[in-house]
């Protein structure tokens, strides 16, 4: 049974919807710039310019909530646009997030620490699970709601769980993806790890120093063949493969030989029934940290040998959007499938000496792109891969 993608929605620093996103990808225009908010102004970030209140108004949202929830509502609403809630189509929502409502709770907590009165109701927005319940409410979905929190692989894992629940017959349709809003907590966290680049990040480049952070959300609507008969939706792509594996190497670092990455890519190929040579483009995790890109390069070479397909990291467009990245990059993947695009790895100039891999440098269309493999790797060695295929 095939799992069809029948809707997609995205918001990030390169666009507020799918259409704007494609324009930015085509024009090789990064969304990373000097931050505008108090906690981002010292750094280069892939920030969405609007405040939380502005987001509510601009996108006609019915709830005031954390940034993570609001961005999720925007992308999920775009994905679900034109879809109807039907009594005989059991619909669930699975969202991934790493920090949940931290952007609002950290402000209340700061007041508390300073001995000022903190608004206790603000903390209601804090739990990651609540962000998903709020997104589901915005869409009117109450069949099944779940939140995956595996750091930066969360959205990929949400898509994977959605597909598995469809195959198993627990759901007929699933809205899946991920969302993360920038917060002081995350920015300070990645700075404490000293994997933060003050310049533009350079994935897969020998001179890479670290990542730029970003924010956003990306969601897909998944349906089975049977559901499509009922909804009459036209598929945009097929979610053909998925896998998750544990690197079990270190709390934060990836294994030098890329074991977890290798396992997850091989696992996804196996579910999809594809051979490595069937993959036409790899959207790598490619955070631009010295450790990730080296480990992932080894993983890619382990799976693809000497014939590595065109690959790139799009993190230099959006920054690392953490739990949202797999969702945002799945939307990029579907755009690439349907336009025959290969997406460029911006800011690249020099291959990593140890692996010698050169990513796609320029945007192009009209290529024969049938199958795309997309990687998302999280803290704790949580490695996930999905494969998207042309209908």
């Amino acid at each position, binding site marked *: 049974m095939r799992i069809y993608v029948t809707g997609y929605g995205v918001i990030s620093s390169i666009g507020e919807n799918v259409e704007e996103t494609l324009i930015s990808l085509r024009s090789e225009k990064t969304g990373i710039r000097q931050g505008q908010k108090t906690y981002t102004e010292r750094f280069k970030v892939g920030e969405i310019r609007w405040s939380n209140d502005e987001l509510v108004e601009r996108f006609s949202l019915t709830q005031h909530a954390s940034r993570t929830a609001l961005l999720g509502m925007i992308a999920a609403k775009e994905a679900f646009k034109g879809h109807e809630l039907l009594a005989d189509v059991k619909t669930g929502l699975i969202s991934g997030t790493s920090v949940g409502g931290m952007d609002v709770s950290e402000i209340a907590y700061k007041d508390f620490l300073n001995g000022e009165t903190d608004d206790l109701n603000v903390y209601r927005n804090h739990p990651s699970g609540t962000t998903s319940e709020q997104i589901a409410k915005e869409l009117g979905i109450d069949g099944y709601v779940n939140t995956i929190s595996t750091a930066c692989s969360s959205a990929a894992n949400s898509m994977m769980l959605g597909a598995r629940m469809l195959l198993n017959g627990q759901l007929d349709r699933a809205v899946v993806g991920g969302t993360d809003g920038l917060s002081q907590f995350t920015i300070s966290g990645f700075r404490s*790890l*000293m994997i933060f680049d003050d310049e533009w990040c350079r994935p897969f480049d020998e001179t890479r120093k670290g990542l730029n952070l970003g924010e956003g959300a990306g969601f897909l609507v998944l349906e089975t063949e049977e559901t499509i008969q009922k909804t009459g939706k036209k598929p945009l792509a097929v979610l053909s493969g998925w896998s998750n594996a544990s690197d079990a190497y*270190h*709390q*934060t670092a990836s294994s030098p030989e890329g074991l977890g990455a290798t396992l997850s890519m091989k696992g996804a190929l196996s579910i999809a029934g594809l051979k490595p040579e069937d993959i036409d483009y790899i959207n790598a995790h490619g955070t631009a940290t010295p450790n990730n890109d080296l480990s992932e390069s080894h993983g890619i070479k382990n799976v693809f040998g000497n014939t590595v397909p065109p690959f790139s990291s799009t993190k230099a467009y959006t920054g690392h959007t953490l739990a949202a990245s797999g969702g945002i990059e799945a939307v990029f993947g579907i755009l690439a499938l349907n336009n025959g695009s290969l997406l460029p790895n911006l800011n690249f100039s020099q291959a990593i000496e140890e692996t010698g891999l050169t990513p796609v440098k320029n945007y192009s269309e009209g290529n024969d792109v049938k199958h795309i493999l997309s990687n998302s790797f999280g803290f704790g060695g949580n490695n996930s891969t999905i494969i998207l295929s042309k209908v």
Partner: protein
Amino acid sequence: MSDLKENLKAQIIEQLNLEDLTPADIQDDAPLFGDQGLGLDSIDALEFIVLLDSNYGIKITDPSQGKEIFQSVNTLADFISKNQ
């Protein structure tokens, strides 16, 4: 110098939560990282950077510098006395 080393050992134990150790358990020239020594890892290396900043006012901005500096209590003490 020996005062500095003793202080360092106490600070290392505190910063890295090495509750089971006393300063006497850490030899001046014993490797701090890897299985041969205290078995510290890359997260501890970052904690060393915090320790140098908060206790000695020394800022290390490139974590790859740490490899040389954090080899042992001796190398750490050397680095501190040269940079303070």
